[in-house]
């Protein structure tokens, strides 16, 4: 243990002398600044709805009253204007309201990429809305939220889990690989091989460096963006678990390569693929079964639970446990491989 500690102190000293450590902190600060000063607390990204009527004036007034004065609805004077407006905003929809004998016809003007279920939804939405306006309409639908006081994160805080997952869990993969290969190139590793230090102590010390950086950058960002109203003990636990998992994985992957760049490529692809669950995170209705098997999926969601005021604590604790165990297994595997290859 003393040897591990001494190795760690030496590595820490080296990283304080290097540029990388300060760049990490600088980047965290830039991230905080961007989030606080550039990103609005909540994005306004609602869909715009362009409407025109081909009706007599009395009917047109009724329709106008029905549509209300919602911010999302923009009244235009004719079909051409709608089409032009929709070309500028490819996520918008339009509608031309006209009359066919006695019935109003809502011609929904879509972009063209919308699929059938989307069309069904739009149709049902409009019909349901009209339905509720008909006198005598009754419906026996109750909504029961399972969590009464469930709250949502602001868009700004909502980004934090993605950042933390990427920075702590995934980017460590790169850096730890770079550290190992640099030591290999400089022959430092040979020096270890003839010193009474175990391989695992050398590897663990590198992981502790990554952990130190991960903790520092995570704590300052969470503190700056989410404030004091966060359970920092759990944050500590999550960061330790994810960071351990990430750097152990980085070690294991790099043990299969003889040069840094070769390892980098694989790690890079790995990180990119790991970012896919971010889609699910931002769009929770995108939930194919396979995405839940990506390690980054629970990472993001458990960090979100942490930031929620009454997040699911057992979920957080479970993830801490799972990732610590996984990290340990990966570490043992990495250690096993490095024992054979480190000095080659």
């Amino acid at each position, binding site marked *: 243990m003393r040897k591990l500690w001494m190795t760690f102190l030496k590595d820490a000293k080296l990283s304080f002398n290097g540029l990388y450590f300060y760049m990490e902190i600088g980047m965290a600060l830039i991230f905080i600044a961007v989030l606080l000063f550039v990103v609005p607390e909540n994005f306004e990204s609602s869909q715009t709805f362009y409407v025109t009527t081909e009706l007599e004036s009395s009917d047109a007034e009724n329709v106008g009253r029905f549509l209300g004065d919602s911010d999302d609805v923009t009244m235009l004077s004719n079909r051409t204007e709608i089409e032009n407006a929709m070309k500028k905003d490819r996520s918008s929809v339009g509608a031309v309201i006209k009359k066919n004998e006695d019935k109003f016809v809502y011609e929904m003007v879509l972009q063209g990429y919308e699929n059938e279920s989307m069309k069904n939804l739009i149709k049902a939405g409009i019909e349901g809305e009209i339905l*509720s306006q008909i006198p005598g309409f009754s419906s026996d639908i109750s909504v029961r939220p399972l969590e009464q006081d469930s709250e949502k994160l602001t868009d700004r805080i909502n980004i934090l889990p993605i950042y933390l997952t990427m920075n702590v869990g995934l980017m460590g993969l790169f850096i730890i690989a770079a550290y190992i290969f640099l030591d290999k190139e400089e022959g430092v590793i040979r020096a270890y091989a003839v010193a009474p230090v175990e391989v695992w102590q050398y590897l663990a010390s590198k992981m502790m460096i990554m952990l130190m950086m991960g903790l520092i950058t995570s704590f300052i960002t969470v503190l700056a963006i989410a404030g004091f109203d966060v359970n920092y003990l759990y944050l500590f636990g999550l960061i330790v678990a994810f960071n351990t998992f990430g750097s152990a994985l980085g070690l294991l992957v790099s043990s299969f390569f003889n040069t840094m760049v070769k390892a980098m490529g694989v790690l890079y692809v790995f990180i990119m693929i790991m970012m896919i669950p971010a889609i699910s995170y931002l769009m929770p209705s995108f939930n194919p079964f396979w995405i839940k098997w990506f390690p980054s999926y629970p990472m993001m969601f458990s960090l979100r639970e942490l930031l929620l005021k009454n997040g699911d604590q057992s979920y957080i604790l479970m993830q801490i446990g799972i990732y610590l165990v996984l990290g340990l297994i990966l570490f043992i595997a990495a250690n096993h491989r490095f024992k054979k290859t480190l000095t080659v």
Partner: protein
Amino acid sequence: MRRILNFVIRDIKSGTRDWLVIYLAAAPIMFALVLKMLIPSVGDSTLNVAIYEDTPPAIVSYLETYAKVIEVNDMEERILRMDDVFGVVVNDDKVEIVTQGNEMEGTVDLLKTIVGRYQNESVELPIEVEFSDIGWVMSPMKLEGANLLIIFNTILGGMLILLNLVEEKMSNTISAINVTPTKRKEFIIGKGLLGFILTLYGGAAVITVLGFEGINYAMLFVSVFAISFIGAIIGFSIGVVSDEPISAIASMKTVFIPVLASIFGAIYLPAKWIFILYWSPFYWAYDVIKDILLVQATWGQVFMNSGIILIITALVFVGLRKRIVNGLS
């Protein structure tokens, strides 16, 4: 020219030995393929509904026209999971919608109207809904995704330049080249050329894989060429001062933030806030590439945006010139 080519060939040779060039050449194709794979499934996911096994088949098939329906035994457990799934529980005529409470706004209301419509199927509506479209089959995800990939690719080009320079720095070979008749200009072009080629190739690869049609390749070429300078400048300025790859990679990582901030800012910021992105060349690149992909860019716009990008790049270069020149000697 002969010497420039010599540098490029050396970098390719060296880059294929550790797979660097192979990686960077494969990356845009791979990412585009992943994106292509994701587009339909992301587009399909609108509503997820969980039901019990004994739910009447009529309502199940009705719901299936609108949503992805799954059968569950433990409704609450399923709903409380991390994704957005609503429960629909039918008791005689009563329908209960079970939510977790933190779902995306508006989706509960949508489900409510859908179920309400089912309950009142017999009611004659005074309206009809029909559909037409303006012939735009490209999904926003494909558009924005392709744009993001093209711009990110310029960073990959910068990364290639960067890593090749770090190689020169680490093996101290720049001084050996400085005592040959090679002009500094030749060295810089020789070292930068591969990055440009990679960026242009990557842009073309993304467009081809994702299957954009009617693209004006000349416009795309000019715009991507302009934005390549940013990648190259970043690559050079970091590369010439980094003697070891760790800080080089870390600084490259730092570049991701302005890139992502510019692109997501451009997508999500309301029009009145867009001006806060004007400093960023990546914003201007995003702006013009988007219109090129939409087949509505004009040459005037291409030249204006490329001009702005080049001016910003030139300012950055003037700021970093000393650093770059000193680093090369």
